[in-house]
């Protein structure tokens, strides 16, 4: 059905879905199988000697698996039991700042019983990657994550509206628990709970300053230039890229969590 409908619905739209007859599959490991497809990147990055056309071209995303929900405190606890070097008393300063697992009163104790189903927060990129690797997975790339959010153009307005609402809600003592409504792929809680790490968050390091008109800051960055964005009215997308740009791999924050990705099933 969405084969035709999804075409050119805007920024994050899938321009021409390659997979027909998409089945929402929740595997026993809590992961969703996402079909291969084309995806229109929000940031138009133009290589130094490439044409503008290249920058605006849709990108092909291979099929992959993605956690249906952000990783919870309960899941992270299991990881810490098996991998003591990532407990808060043991973590090396190289891998996380002082607020690592801030809400955890002690090494193997997520804030309280209610916190078990909340997304784990205050984890660094290093810790998130280590967790995913321990499951034989990786963090999703930024493109994979954005592709899952774009959801073939479905629910675009809902995503934007929910994002803006979430921006206006001050951080609570705890993030809400996982288990929100699924999008068309079956993926949940991509907005409204936490920001999420991506594997290559640092690849977008220059985008916090969006006013750089030609985008080419030759003194600091090699080769590429952001030749604009696909939709300048998509404020939540700007915000996601700014957030990624503001991070370093050892940073942790009260509203920053993650989920894992893997290859095609």
């Amino acid at each position: 059905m969405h084969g035709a409908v999804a075409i050119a619905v805007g920024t994050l739209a899938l321009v021409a879905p390659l997979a027909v007859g998409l089945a929402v599959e929740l595997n026993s490991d809590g992961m969703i199988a996402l079909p291969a497809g084309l995806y229109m990147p929000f940031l138009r990055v133009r290589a130094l000697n490439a044409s503008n056309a290249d920058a605006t071209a849709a990108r092909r995303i291979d099929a992959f698996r993605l956690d249906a929900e952000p990783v919870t405190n309960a899941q992270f606890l299991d990881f810490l039991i098996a991998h003591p070097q990532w407990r808060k008393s043991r973590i090396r300063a190289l891998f996380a700042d002082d607020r690592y697992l801030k809400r955890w009163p002690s090494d193997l104790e997520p804030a309280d019983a209610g916190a078990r189903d909340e997304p784990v927060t205050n984890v660094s990129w290093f810790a998130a990657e280590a967790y995913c690797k321990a499951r034989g997975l990786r963090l999703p790339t930024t493109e994979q994550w954005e592709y899952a959010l774009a959801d073939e153009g479905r629910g675009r307005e809902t995503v934007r509206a929910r994002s803006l609402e979430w921006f206006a809600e001050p951080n609570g003592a705890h993030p809400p628990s996982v288990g929100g409504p699924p999008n068309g792929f079956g993926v949940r809680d991509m907005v409204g709970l936490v920001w999420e790490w991506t594997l290559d968050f640092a690849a977008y390091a220059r985008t916090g300053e969006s006013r750089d008109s030609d985008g080419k800051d030759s003194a600091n960055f090699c080769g590429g230039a952001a030749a604009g964005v696909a939709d300048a009215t998509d404020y939540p997308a700007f915000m996601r890229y700014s957030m990624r740009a503001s991070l370093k791999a050892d940073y942790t924050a009260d509203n920053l969590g993650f989920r894992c990705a893997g290859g095609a099933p």
Partner: protein
Amino acid sequence: MRVRSFGSGAAMAALLIAGAAFAASREDNLNDPITGQENAVLADAPNVPPPVQRDHATKIVVHLEVRELEGRLADAVRYTFWTFGGHVPGKFIRIREGDLVEMHLDNHPDNKMPHNIDLHAVNGPGGGAAASLTAPGHSSVFSFKALNPGLYVYHCATAPVAMHIGNGMYGMILVEPKEGLPKVDHEYYVMQGDFYTQGANGDQGLQPFSMAKVIDEKPEYVVFNGSVGSTVGDKALTAKVGETVRLFVGDGGPNLVSSFHVIGQIFDVVYPEGNLAAPTRNVQTTMIPAGGAAIVQFQMSVPGTFIIVDHSIERAFNRGALAQLKVSGEENKLVYSGKTFDLVYQPEGTGIRVAGQGQIVAPAAQSKAERIELGAGVFANNCQACHQADGEGVPDAFPPLAKSDYLNGDKIRAIKTVTGGLETKLTVNGHDFNGVMPAWSLSDEDIADVLTYVYNTWGNSGQEVTPEEVRAYRIKAQ
């Protein structure tokens, strides 16, 4: 009253003009040696830090803490503000030209968003923005040398910029010339900003930011110092007759340009665009660009309440861009006779105020007590700006509702005033008024509620007005 060194407006203006040769060159400021180190003294609007007393350049350490906080945008309207220092506008920073500023941007761990800072006082890429993108719970540090004196806006420039500014992320930095500024009796900080809520102006509760409205440049609120009524009543600016006042005025935007005006007060001196080198004199309204500033100075000649507005006037009366300067002291009938006044704003007849569409229909009152309670909200949103929270009005401009003989004398006349507006001369408690009371397109229910509230407050007669009475009046009037 304090004894002052210069008594007349002319003398002050002369002094200020004499200062026109302000400003060392960029080179001078670049080479000005740095001695010592200080922590910046910062101030929240409407206050301003004290003048710089130093005769040399120093290193100034500035800590700006970014806080995302829920606060009051208007009565019963809440909003999540993003702030430099906990308030909108951000902390006022005051330094001297030649100073070396070490800027710390501290993004509080409770925050959700990354932020940065672009100071228009900086010569360098992004005005510091490129060096200061900061994740929640982290700090960025950079430094700059103040090469050009003047009054400058600073703001967050993180993408999407209009949202960061639209949520209140702006403030000002004053780079004083070496000579300092001429002494005045009062200095105040006033900054305009436009806000874009999903609900229409007056819709109650926590209002989310509207992406669509900011893109259309159609704000619901235009305010001074961060909220409707931030600077009125007991929070008004104050001065005495004979004193000199300097306002540091900025416009954070994100979108609107301000036609800055003080009703009934001519600016003796204006430093347009915050430029200290070329002051102008005898100005009525000065234009302040979004992301720009101006310094205005004047001497108070007569007492009264002076209303500060964006003279793009719909914003003042319907969106909140209104503040007050209350001046006490002796009348001077020669300067101002007190019989006419400068407050007729009706370019096209009596303005009809249309309540916003899509407004949630309020539940109807079931009793007089409920009517009074609901009426208080209607009053705060629609009437208070002119008649004041204490119902006392503003002398010579807006008549009092408290113990008003006009009001208490005739209920039907009161209903007529609110439904149909009023612009004929009238006398309230022995004082003449000849202003414009707009006609209100409020529902019968709202008018009944607000009048019942007014009648049952401030020692008024205690009557009730019902929607039926309002409806009956309307039918009869047709």
